[in-house]
């Protein structure tokens, strides 16, 4: 039994899960904020990719990873701003404008990567340092899981709480939700739907941009074409599974990340399932979730519907 536990390495599995959940949670939180205000944001994949790229470029140019993180967040907010302009000013179908941004991000980052970055064989800017929280890091079990992480992962955990408080315990949150449920009523009550939607979509982009920094600045210290690899879409499934709440999205992301971490580990647990099957676990789970097998998820009533002040 003891040998089994040591081989199973549950603490390591939990740590790997929290780490792998980081971009999912950040993007899912972004999705929650945007959709609660009434704007569908399927652009999160492209927003993360943009953040990963811009953050890396900034870090490479200045040799300062923290500057890179800042640029990642800012660029995420800016490209989300484009989504907001298309969706709010021009009343473009939000699915279409989100798709435009996803494709645009793949194309532009790929091209600039090839023209400017790929050629050089210099060492990259490195990765964000591991911060061991004094005392807490040495706790058994909890220490290695929670208190020996890097910045983006710590920030993710804190942001889950912040977004929850913002949405459900603040005036901003009340107004946001009003815009997502019944924009006409909100407008009648004197809330600027336009302003609230811009604000939330751009905050959503900032969260996505930070999620992008996870890839290029925290994990890999490099940028690669399309390195977000569909995580932005899995995050949307997590958002739905989590019923558009920050804690729900967090738990759902953990589930997806755990299935990811576990799938690969089955290979050296010596369990005889073809690894081609286990590696598809997160996707199978996503399909089950999106197909609604886990109870009905109710979206904000006005999500995806352009609102025009009349």
């Amino acid at each position: 039994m003891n040998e089994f536990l040591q081989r199973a390495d549950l603490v390591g599995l939990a740590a790997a899960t929290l780490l792998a959940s980081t971009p999912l949670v950040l993007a899912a939180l972004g999705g929650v904020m945007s959709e609660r205000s009434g704007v569908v944001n399927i652009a999160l994949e492209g927003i993360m990719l943009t953040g990963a790229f811009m953050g890396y470029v900034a870090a490479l140019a200045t040799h300062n990873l923290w500057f890179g993180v800042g640029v990642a967040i800012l660029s995420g907010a800016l490209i989300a701003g484009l989504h907001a302009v298309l969706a709010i000013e021009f009343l473009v179908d939000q699915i279409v404008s989100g798709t435009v941004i996803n494709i645009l991000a793949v194309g532009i980052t790929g091209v600039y990567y090839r023209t400017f970055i790929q050629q050089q064989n210099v060492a990259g800017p490195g990765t964000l340092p591991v911060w061991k929280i004094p005392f807490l890091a040495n706790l058994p079990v909890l220490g290695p899981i929670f208190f020996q992480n890097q910045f983006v992962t710590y920030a993710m955990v804190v942001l889950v709480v912040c977004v929850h408080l913002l949405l459900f315990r603040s005036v901003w949150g009340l107004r946001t939700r009003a815009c997502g449920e019944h924009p006409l009523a909100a407008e009648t009550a004197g809330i600027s739907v336009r302003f609230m939607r811009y604000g939330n979509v751009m905050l959503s982009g900032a969260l996505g941009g930070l999620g992008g920094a996870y890839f290029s600045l925290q994990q890999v210290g490099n940028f690669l074409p399309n390195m977000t690899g569909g995580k932005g879409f899995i995050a949307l499934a997590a958002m739905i599974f989590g019923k558009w709440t920050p804690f729900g999205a967090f738990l759902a992301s953990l589930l997806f990340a755990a299935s990811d971490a576990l799938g690969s580990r089955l290979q050296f647990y010596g369990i005889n399932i073809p690894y081609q099957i286990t590696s598809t676990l997160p996707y199978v789970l996503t399909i089950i979730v999106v197909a609604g097998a886990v109870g009905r998820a109710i979206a904000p009533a006005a999500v995806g519907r352009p609102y025009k002040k009349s």
Partner: protein
Amino acid sequence: MMRSVRSLAAAAAIVMAAVACGGNSGTSGGGASCSKTYKVGLVTDVGKLSDKSFNATSWQGVVDAQNDKSLCVQGKAIESNQPTDYAKNMQTFVDQGYDMVVAVGFLMGDDTLAEAKKNSGTKFAIVDFAYTPTQSPPANLTGLVFKEDQAGFEIGALAGLMTKTGTVGQVLGLKIPPVVRYAEGYKAGVKYTNPSAKVLEVYQGPGDGAAFNNPDWGKARAIDEINQNADIIFGGGGNTGNGALLGALSKQKACIGVDTDQFVSYPDADGCLMTSAEKKLATAVKTAITDMVKNQWPSSNLLTFDAANGGVGISSYHDYDSKIPADVKTKITDIQKKLADGSLQTGVNIS
């Protein structure tokens, strides 16, 4: 309604623009005193030129041929974004009158065979693929294959001698023959020098993100193996393997690179790199190009590169040199000699 039609059109336009920008190319060369310039086109697999190992080194072979003015070669590369581009990209070179097309990688085996059969006037060389007689490869097609198991055996032997925990790990790309040869050779090498040692291994599955291109995944898997007590990690799979090197670096364990001397090609991992299992892709590609130019195209549809002809081996120890005891180095040199003269076999036979 009108609006969404318009935005769909805008979306479509952007897709086209992105696709048009998707391929990338490098070109130059051709000496002044050449009566005929041989045009050589290289098509990458989805690993792309940015992998700092496999595709990058194969392209280096074209560049080397180009720089060798006596060959009069002019080279160009197209990067493939997805497997469905392989045939199309090869055909692009054929249509532009190229003398030779180099296909990089096992994954392009079927497409290259079909293209070679269709275009008998163009020479085709494919890295990492050996055709069987039943596939009836045409005369204008040759595979360039390596005995990766010998390079894997050498790094495995080194890992077996250097491990303190008695456990070593490997994080691999897709389970295709060249990768499996490395992996099985590695295991055989570990067992050869350290019969009681344990080897952990993980292959990238089809659901684990971009093939050979998911360093985030590779890093997490290296850390998994380190949590299971491994103290040396072999990263064998393009950018995915590079991630594994980073994982070892972050946990202050030793790491071993693949395909090329990664101390040079991937300085990010220099802090943990013991050596790299090399296959001399550049040499192989240049050899095939030279054969084409000099009209000595192999009749057997195959060029094999192994320890005996210097086609596979291990890189210099670089910064790790001082941490490797002299007797270990002696043993490794001895193993290299025996593999080269055939008195030691890896026991791996995968094609």
